[in-house]
């Protein structure tokens, strides 16, 4: 069932066309991720959906509800964690949550939220004393206090260390188990791949592609990247390079010093051929790996640009 539908959104700030034409729909219970480099239009898109920025053109529907007619009803349905950690620094997590709870008719108990965001131990510390990851979890907690159907998380892991990021992922996966719909923005490909049911890649205000992470990778190509590193010097690598280029399943190769990258449609067959070749020549190989294509490769393939974090 569709909980959110966005059609032909457009927004300019002065001469900058932040969002050119964005349309998508989100289904109940899925984690829907908008990914793109900085300045791609992710946050503007999200803020239009959240009702903070009015679009120049386009439509936003939450089922039958729209911002122009049902603002209060929508606000009760959605929970928003904005990019800046906007909360009262001099209040404790508990006090922040209680205050936000008072804005809603049917708020979830503060204790439950503290449990979900794993801040029960810090409930009585002032927010200004919390770490970046703890603040971010509280920001998510504030978005959950109204027990919303749809949760918007705008770059929840930006600037956090790996452990803190993983804690946030756990919360997002927990929300999915609870049957919530989550709309997430990130500029970490790894995160999108791990968490999302569907990913929407945006660049320069347009959707480049939209599908499940695995389908996107599949759609792009069925090539896999094989990496080999030779112990017998550059000559060995060069000969292996030459050999693999003549193989049928190999699309292209790339050599740098003693290491070789081979992109192949059937990586298993190619590897077998390469091992045979090495055995004949008595070349020793130090490392072999097959890398799955990632969303990063999808991005590069679609935009022709390097991915930058």
């Amino acid at each position, binding site marked *: 069932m569709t909980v959110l539908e966005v059609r032909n959104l457009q927004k300019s700030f002065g001469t900058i066309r932040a969002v050119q034409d964005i349309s998508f729909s989100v289904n109940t219970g899925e984690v829907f991720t908008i990914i793109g480099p900085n300045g791609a239009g992710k946050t503007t898109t999200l803020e239009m959906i959240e009702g*903070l920025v009015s679009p120049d053109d386009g439509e936003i529907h939450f089922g039958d509800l729209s911002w122009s007619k049902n603002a209060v009803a929508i606000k009760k349905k959605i929970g*928003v964690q904005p990019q800046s950690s906007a909360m*009262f620094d*001099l209040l404790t997590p508990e006090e922040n949550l209680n*205050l936000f709870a008072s804005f809603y008719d049917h708020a979830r108990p503060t204790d439950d939220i503290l449990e979900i965001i794993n801040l029960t131990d810090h409930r009585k510390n002032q927010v200004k004393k919390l770490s970046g990851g703890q603040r971010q979890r509280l920001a998510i907690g504030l978005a959950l206090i109204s027990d919303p159907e749809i949760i918007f998380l705008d770059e929840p892991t930006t600037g956090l260390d790996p452990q803190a990021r993983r804690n946030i992922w756990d919360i997002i996966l927990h929300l999915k188990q609870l049957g919530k719909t989550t709309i997430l923005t990130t500029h970490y490909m790894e995160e999108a791949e791990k968490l999302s049911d569907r990913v929407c890649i945006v660049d320069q205000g347009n959707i480049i592609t939209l599908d499940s992470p695995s389908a996107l990778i599949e759609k792009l190509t069925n090539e896999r990247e094989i990496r080999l590193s030779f112990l017998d010097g550059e000559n060995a690598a060069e000969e292996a390079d030459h050999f693999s280029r003549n193989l049928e399943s190999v699309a292209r190769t790339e050599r740098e010093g003693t290491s070789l990258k081979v992109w192949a449609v059937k990586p298993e067959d190619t590897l077998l051929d390469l091992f045979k070749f090495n055995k004949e020549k008595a070349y020793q190989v130090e490392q072999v790996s097959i890398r799955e294509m990632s969303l990063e490769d999808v991005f590069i393939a679609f935009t022709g640009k390097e991915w930058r974090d």
Partner: protein
Amino acid sequence: MYLLLLQARNGGIKIKHFHQFKMMLSAQLKLTLREKQAWFWGIFFPVILMVIFMVIFSGNSDEEFQSEIAIVDPNPNPASEMLFTQISGLPVFDVKTGTPVSREKAEEWVKGQEVDAAIILPESADASSVLLIVNKEDEQGAAVQAVSGILDKFVQQANLFAAGAEPSFELQYKSVSSGSNELDYTDFLLTGMIALSIAQGGMFGMVDLVEMRRKGLIKRLRMTPANMGIFGLSDMVMRLLFSIIQIILLSLIGVLIFGANLYISPISLVVVFLMGALSFNALGYFFSSFSKTTEAYMGVANIVSFLMMFLSGVFFPVETMPEWLQPVSNVLPLTYFADGLRESMVYETSVISGTLWFGIGVMVIWGTITFILGSWLYKRKAIVADR
């Protein structure tokens, strides 16, 4: 405050919003209590400023000027004895040891600055000069000048008396104040300081709004169904509570430590206080509407508050300022706020008073104009104008 207006437009506060108000007010109180800056600038700073000014300018005002002198009567005779009795009878002079001393002793005291001056009485009934010996270092000092002036006047009177003439003119000195109750400097300064600290509370206090906007908190609250009118109202109630603490604390210090006399007209005080506090909050709200950073805001608030502090008769009456500056004072809201507080806290002026309402009118005009300008600027900048 613009939120208040929004609220009014939405048709008043509903009872179901009471819980929201209670939670918001409790949050506001906690925020203020935990903010050290608020305590420093709102409570500690005005108290210190008032104490310093009171100690410097009014600490000795109740005591008469008194100077310690030595009198030398080298050759006691009826005339010199009469002069001695009269001079030592002057309340401004405190004659060291109470009796005439030798000239050597007197000069030693003057050199050692143990006395402000030594007076050498005429050596015989026929001699007529009275000699005043002072320390070179103190020659231009206030005490020596005063002693010399007083002695000069005394000698003139003695001359007239000796000539048997009655002075044709005499200077009579009497101080008056405009109200029914006497206003001394302590009362003047106390009421001025109360006005200043409430005004500063309003002008500086809205820095929270800039900070909240910068941190995205206002945006964040707008994402919830929170009633922003109630949020504004709770903010305002908290500010008024804080100002009431300021009034009580400053008044207590003024009355108990510096002996200020207050004759309060409660209704006038409440009206002046509310109108003044709201107007200065509107001023702060206006500053916040065009300040992107807290630094910018503090800069503007500092300039305005500094100018007003010295041009609005907080420390010294407006009348003592150069004439060309007075028209400036006469348009500043703080002038009328300080005057209003003086009327209602010292003169016990009833709420039905033309002067009182003229002052309130000026403050309300300031409040209204800055509030409208501020709201307009906020609205112009708001990404979504009406939500």
